């Protein structure tokens, strides 16, 4: 198809003349809105005393400083309520566009010349001018851009059209897109990274290679979160590669549904699927794949749900990808609930308030109306969000049902308890009373992933990241049963490797979920929960004895090989897998074991089941995004090739989307 044809056809669309009456009405409505805004702006500005204005400025200044600043302002969140008011004012009454405007942080500006080319400079200057004087006669919150680095001095008139504006830009990097004016592509890359610089992630140290002789046992907790994949997807779709710490490989792998054996009995809620096959990125090693699918709850057993939505309506939630998306997401969830279930809504901004008392889904209209009425920036009557949510959940506690709080936020927890640790221990205490917590993350630029993860883990819940309505559907509707109905708690995996066959191993992902060997049998040690229908996949890269791919040398003074393993076993068994879990109503754990032996091995990659191969390609992608320490020369193209043959059975298109993401990542790089 020729581009020209489409151009031609589309440019010749006949557009009907708009209705003159409607046009007049629009003009009238917008002028009166203009006047209303003007008045309320003046009123609000007058109401803010000098001191607060000062604090507000400092806070805005801190925000401008990026990541450090945000952490800083988080630490001082105790006093944050004092100036939430001013932030709400600034975010509510200023433009929608303001929230979308990129952060003007540390954009390197080349001083030597080309910058004067105008067009692009104009564009970036817009980005610099984050500050907006809201001045309207009486009083003003004006924030000067002096905090930002020196902006290009060129002012371009508004008069020129966008076409001429672009025409002024020299194409000094050939076809390569992004470089215009005096910015190099790299500058802009770092500029883009900066934009999301306030997203907070805990540092992940990639799991090291371990020697089977020294450390034959690997123990970790399951992780059914998927937030990392959604966040990575969002970043890549946005045209930037995610920061390494945002990539949690196990969450990327577990984002997808795999066709593992489904257990039939709730008393034995899962059955592991194991496979050993050649590593796609390393000819000298093998992958050991462990897949678990949770018992899938059958509808007639579906317990009643008592849900409390705890929703962040602070000013920062005013972006399109936050509150409006959140509202639609919850709408999807409400529509998927049964009549016996109840929903309550608590919102928090500077203060917290109950928007909806526990209401039966029979009165769906009432719940949906309450969702619709939520406005970002609206302040609500006192109290403290999270306590309120727990109070409501307790008051309406369903003994044999699902009691869960679903917290939706972009990461700022000015919910009443300011200290992270205090918040965590509060949630931990509440978890023991049978109320679980799920965390839904929205938006970017200010996303506090680290805290969300901790909260969800302490509340025995899941952390998910919602970047679009499709993701909301996946998390809240499609997987609603798994997110809501826990089938086993404190699920731990332990793998013992056979030193006779395997020399070295490393676990791909699960860095934040590692447990001590002795924790496995200690029922007091908390671990992840698994919901109905959840799948969990863990992949080890293993290096067979005698392989030239070994990374660790033998010890010179090591005693000669011990032959203590039963000889028959030691010849055929790669590893022994143990899974510990507690049934939802039990405090004592149960054990499931299985051996991984040569019967589970595939000699050729193309014999491996497609789902297992697909998981390997996601693992490869995650590792490459994290810097590819162990993936050697494996490229995005190799990942595409590996994944391409595995995406046929793809009902909802998630795997194709994954392929698209890898292609895009390749293009970005």
């Amino acid at each position: 198809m020729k581009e020209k044809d489409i151009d031609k056809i589309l440019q010749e669309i006949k557009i009907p003349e708009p209705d003159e009456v409607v046009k007049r009405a629009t003009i009238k409505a917008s002028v009166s809105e203009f006047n209303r805004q003007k008045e309320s702006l003046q009123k609000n500005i007058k109401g803010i005393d000098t001191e607060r204005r000062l604090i507000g400025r400092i806070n805005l200044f801190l925000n401008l400083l990026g990541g450090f600043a945000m952490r800083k302002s988080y630490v001082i969140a105790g006093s944050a309520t004092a100036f939430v008011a001013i932030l709400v004012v600034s975010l509510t009454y200023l433009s929608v566009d303001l929230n979308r405007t990129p952060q003007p942080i540390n954009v390197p500006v080349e001083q030597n010349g080309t910058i004067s080319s105008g067009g692009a400079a104009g564009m970036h200057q817009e980005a610099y001018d984050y500050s907006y004087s809201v001045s309207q006669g009486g009083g003003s919150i004006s924030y000067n851009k002096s905090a930002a680095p020196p902006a290009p001095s060129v002012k371009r008139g508004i008069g020129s059209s966008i076409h001429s504006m672009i025409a002024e830009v020299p194409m000094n990097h050939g076809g390569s897109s992004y470089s215009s004016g005096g910015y190099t592509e790299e500058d802009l890359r770092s500029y883009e990274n900066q934009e999301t610089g306030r997203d907070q992630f805990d540092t992940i140290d990639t799991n090291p290679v371990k020697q089977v002789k020294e450390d034959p046992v690997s123990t970790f907790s399951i992780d059914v979160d998927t937030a990392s994949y959604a966040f990575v997807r969002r970043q890549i779709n946005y045209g930037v590669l995610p920061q390494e710490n945002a990539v949690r490989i196990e969450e990327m792998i577990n984002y997808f549904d795999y066709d593992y054996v489904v257990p039939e009995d709730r008393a034995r809620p899962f059955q592991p699927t194991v496979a050993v096959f050649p590593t796609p990125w390393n000819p000298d090693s093998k992958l050991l794949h462990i897949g678990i699918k949770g018992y899938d709850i059958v509808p007639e057993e579906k317990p009643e749900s008592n849900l409390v939505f705890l929703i962040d309506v602070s000013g920062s939630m005013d972006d399109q990808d936050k509150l409006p998306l959140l509202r639609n997401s919850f709408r999807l969830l409400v529509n998927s609930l049964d009549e016996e279930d109840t929903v309550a809504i608590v919102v928090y901004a500077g203060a917290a308030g109950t928007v909806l008392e526990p209401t039966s889904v029979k009165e769906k209209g009432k719940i949906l109306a309450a969702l619709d009425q939520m406005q970002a920036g609206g302040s609500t009557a006192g109290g403290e969000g999270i306590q309120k949510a727990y109070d409501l959940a307790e008051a309406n506690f369903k003994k044999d049902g699902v009691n869960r709080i679903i917290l939706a936020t972009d990461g700022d927890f000015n919910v009443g308890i300011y200290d992270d640790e205090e918040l965590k221990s509060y949630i931990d205490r509440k978890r023991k009373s049978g109320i679980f917590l799920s965390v839904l993350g929205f938006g970017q630029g200010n996303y506090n992933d680290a805290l969300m993860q901790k909260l969800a883990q302490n509340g025995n819940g899941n952390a998910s990241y919602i970047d679009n309505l499709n993701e909301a559907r996946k998390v809240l509707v499609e997987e609603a049963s798994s997110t809501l109905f826990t089938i086993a708690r404190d699920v731990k995996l332990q793998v013992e490797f056979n030193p006779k066959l395997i020399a070295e191993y490393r676990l791909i992902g699960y860095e934040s979920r590692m447990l001590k060997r002795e924790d496995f049998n200690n029922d007091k040690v908390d671990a992840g929960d698994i919901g109905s229908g959840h799948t969990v996949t863990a992949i080890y890269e293993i290096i067979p004895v005698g392989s030239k791919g070994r990374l660790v040398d033998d010890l010179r003074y090591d005693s000669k090989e011990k032959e203590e393993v039963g000889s028959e076993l030691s010849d055929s068994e790669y590893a022994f897998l143990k899974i510990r879990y507690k049934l939802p109503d039990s405090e004592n754990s149960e054990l499931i074991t299985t051996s991984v032996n040569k019967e589970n091995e595939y000699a050729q990659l193309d014999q491996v089941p497609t789902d297992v191969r697909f998981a390997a390609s996601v693992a490869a992608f995650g590792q490459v995004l994290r810097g590819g320490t162990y993936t050697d020369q494996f490229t995005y193209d190799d990942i595409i090739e590996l994944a391409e043959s595995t995406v046929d059975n793809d009902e909802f298109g998630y795997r194709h989307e994954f392929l698209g993401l890898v292609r895009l990542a390749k293009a970005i790089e």
Partner: protein
Amino acid sequence: MENQDDTELIKLAREGDSVAFEELVERNYMFVYKISYKWTGIKEDAEDITQNVFMKLAGSIQTFKESSSFQTWLYRITINSAKDFSKKNARIRKKEMALSDQQNMKEGSTSEENSIAELIQYMITKLPHKLKETALLVFSEGMSHKEAAVVLDCAEKTVSWRVFQVKKKLKKHLESDGVKL
């Protein structure tokens, strides 16, 4: 569209002059309406979106900086409003769309050339938002990838990739409908 007078009007409006603001709305009404129409293909929806855009503009004109292009800014607000609008109305529209689809198909068969044009237009309105906004700016508004990237606030490569996707999708759909271009 955007000229020296707009600059003056924006300046006055930012100072709180409602007459200037009114004039600004009047002048830019068609611009916004046209983009909205191209997005939805439905006159009434386009008018609703246009109203939303100017309501937003009323609240945010103070924050507009003269140093950036008003037109780019307006493009952004319009596309965002159009996206919000489609999301909000997706459910209500579903039924209506199903009906009008049938209608379109019937009417579309009058002449060969006409039907291809309509088919393409229709397909564009059915694209996912990211592709749709890109298609609208690049094909319909005739922007270069670079220009579209400025409006969409993404990398030019992203625009190029999306354009490629749009073409691929259109081609696939057209071919499945037996049309060869």
